[in-house]
């Protein structure tokens, strides 16, 4: 126990220990694998999650072949994929496996771990001026539980009968009578949920307890606020899904019938069951989690975008307070809209009225947040570097995604749109060119902090522009197909149906766009690895930013800061004083203390 409580309170931080001097060699395993340092854990999370994202995307690229050219053998790769693709032609069951696993991997193994585990871990302690997370050991466990959950999901592909194939929503009874892959899916989910719970406890405690002196809640960077609210969503929404997963495991392994009604007949064979369960119960428990979950996907992204926009427009965020209140309100409301995914299950007027009203209400804070970000640009001095491009593109893309949520949220218009590609288009606009773009922005933005080097700008732009075009090439046609009534999760992309014929040509457009998107990720992957060694070397604050993480050395050592930082002002004081040169006042600059 060093007397560090003392030093955190002191006004003379000089006598705080210098981390470098204490840096003893901990060996490879302790430094890189079983590290308790939040930065190492953050990077572990990020890399693992990026790999999963890429893997999830590859699954989809294979599926898109079948969607564009139903029943034609997939060249080259087809032969390697084994049982699911005899002669290179994808079987419907295999398609369903890939679809379910794409959704699961993207959401639970890709975006959440990257946005929360990766960026949250790496950036939050730095931004609040803390030496580490509140519970470093638990932090390490949550990473290791995460990859184990991921491994269980991956292993399930090799089981007899393959991976889970009942969609990422796993609706029973289908999921209960499904192959063993579903059991692994449920087990994997229990791991992932546990990991997220540990993470959430850690984040909340860290943000409440470890803020640097002077860093009041209303001086927190918006990213920290977003992570704070996200952590509460994870903490309180995930346990019911854990409960539901346990119940479904019981149904599968102990022959209970929580989700199975009496009188089920599968392929002409009456099932031997006690019956008396309810399939709707699963849907309620699932969406009680999964709606907050979709805000878990978007809030950190909004946080990243806010940081990047404030920094690169060189002016304070417009309406910081309204942003904070909106994000809190959004988090709160997200718990009471869940049943808008279930309008078509036979819902009476009362419940439908309640849930569509809450859904409309929840769209208002999103509009407020987006408006604040858009207005922040006015009067700025916009620097169009790569992170900024991705952050800017986020705005209209999230706009399309969010706006298409409105007709889905109103029961009457949801009737023709539910479970069509319109829904797929809606949420991919928010998660792919929305969240994924924000995450890319974050990678480009904080890469210098993590490595001490910048990523290449030219390659960055080469990555950005085609990505933007291809993203729209994939997802806009989905809205058109959905309007025409094409259902989702169709192995042949709708070819069976007459009414779908005149929008079928779009399947090819989407598939080529998806492969194009895959191709241009090469620029990113190359840039990423090349820049680790060869990128332009930078100092502590390459983006001339105001928040605390840029006070630490790049990369920050164990313990982060040379001295405990003190905070004197709000997070975004760019160009608040006069003069005609661009200037900024970091949070750690004492009042009156000039350059």
């Amino acid at each position, binding site marked *: 126990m060093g007397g560090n409580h003392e030093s955190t309170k002191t006004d003379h931080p000089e006598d705080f220990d210098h981390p470098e001097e204490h840096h003893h060699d901990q060996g490879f395993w302790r430094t890189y694998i079983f590290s308790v340092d939040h930065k190492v854990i953050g990077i572990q999370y990020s890399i693992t999650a990026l790999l999963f994202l890429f893997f999830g995307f590859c699954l989809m690229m294979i599926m898109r072949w079948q969607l564009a050219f139903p029943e034609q053998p997939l060249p080259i790769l087809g032969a390697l994929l084994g049982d699911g693709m005899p002669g290179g032609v994808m079987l419907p069951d295999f398609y369903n496996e890939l679809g379910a696993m794409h959704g699961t991997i993207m959401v639970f193994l890709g975006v959440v771990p990257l946005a929360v585990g990766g960026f949250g871990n790496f950036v939050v302690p730095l931004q609040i001026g803390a030496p580490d997370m509140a519970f470093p050991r638990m932090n390490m466990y949550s990473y290791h539980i995460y990859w184990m959950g991921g491994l269980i999901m991956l292993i399930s592909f090799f089981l007899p009968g393959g991976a889970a194939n009942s969609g990422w929503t796993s609706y029973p009874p289908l999921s209960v009578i499904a192959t063993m892959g579903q059991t692994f899916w449920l087990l994997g989910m229990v791991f992932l949920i546990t990991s997220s719970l540990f993470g959430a406890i850690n984040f909340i405690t860290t943000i409440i307890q470890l803020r640097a002196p002077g860093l009041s809640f209303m001086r927190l960077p918006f990213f920290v606020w977003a992570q704070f609210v996200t952590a*509460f969503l994870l903490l309180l929404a995930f346990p*019911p899904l854990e409960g539901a997963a346990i119940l479904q495991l019981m149904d599968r392994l102990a022959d209970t019938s929580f989700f199975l009604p009496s009188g089920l007949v599968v392929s002409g064979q009456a099932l031997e069951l006690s019956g008396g369960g*309810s399939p709707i*119960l699963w849907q*309620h428990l699932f969406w*009680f989690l999964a709606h907050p979950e979709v805000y878990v996907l978007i809030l950190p992204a909004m946080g990243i975008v806010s940081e990047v926009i404030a920094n690169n427009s060189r002016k304070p965020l417009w309406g910081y307070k309204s942003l904070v209140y909106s994000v809190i309100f959004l988090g709160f409301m997200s718990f*009471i809209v869940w049943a808008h995914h279930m309008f078509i299950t*036979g*819902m*009476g007027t009362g419940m439908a009225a309640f849930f569509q009203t809450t859904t409309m209400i929840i769209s208002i804070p999103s509009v407020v947040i987006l408006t604040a970000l858009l207005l922040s640009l006015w009067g700025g001095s916009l620097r169009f570097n790569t992170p900024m491009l991705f952050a800017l593109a986020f705005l209209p893309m999230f706009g399309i995604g969010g706006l298409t949520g409105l007709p889905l949220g109103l029961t009457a218009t949801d009737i023709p749109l539910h479970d069509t590609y319109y829904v797929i288009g809606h949420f991919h606009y928010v998660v792919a060119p929305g969240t994924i773009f924000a995450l890319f922005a974050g990678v480009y933005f904080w890469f210098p902090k993590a490595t001490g080097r910048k990523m290449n700008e030219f390659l960055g732009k080469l990555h950005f522009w085609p990505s933007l075009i291809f993203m729209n090439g994939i997802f806009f046609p989905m809205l058109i197909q959905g309007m025409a009534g094409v259902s989702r999760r169709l192995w042949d992309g709708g070819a069976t149906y007459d009414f779908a014929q005149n929008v079928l040509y779009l399947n090819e457009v989407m598939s080529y766009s998806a492969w194009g998107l895959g191709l241009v990720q090469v620029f990113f992957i190359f840039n990423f690895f090349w820049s680790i060694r060869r990128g332009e070397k930078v100092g502590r604050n390459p983006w001339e930013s105001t928040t605390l993480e840029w006070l630490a050395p790049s990369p920050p050592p164990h313990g982060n800061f040379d001295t405990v930082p003190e905070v004197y002002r709000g997070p975004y004081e760019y160009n608040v004083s006069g003069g005609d040169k661009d200037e900024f006042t970091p949070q750690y600059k004492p009042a009156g203390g000039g350059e």
Partner: protein
Amino acid sequence: MGHDMSEEEIQKHVRIYMFVFGALLTLTVITVAASYLHHVVPMSVSIAIALLIAIVKGSLVACYFMHLIDERKMIYLALILTAFFFLGLLLLPFLTNLDQVQT
């Protein structure tokens, strides 16, 4: 709980614990006894009695054993939030059952 407590304070606490212990035992006995009543009173009444007693017992544990009776604001805030969503969760089955489309 602040970390420096005088001997008297602790004594006082211990007395409270013993009192709560007695109350919990008594209430448990009452619940079981009352459950035999349900042949006399309607089911809904006996459910209400049982849950009411359980809530009282739960509150005793939470307030005194878990010291919620004097905790910090931050903890209260977190718990109020939880309680709210917990109630939402309990409402869910009623929502489902009462509002299913029927002719």
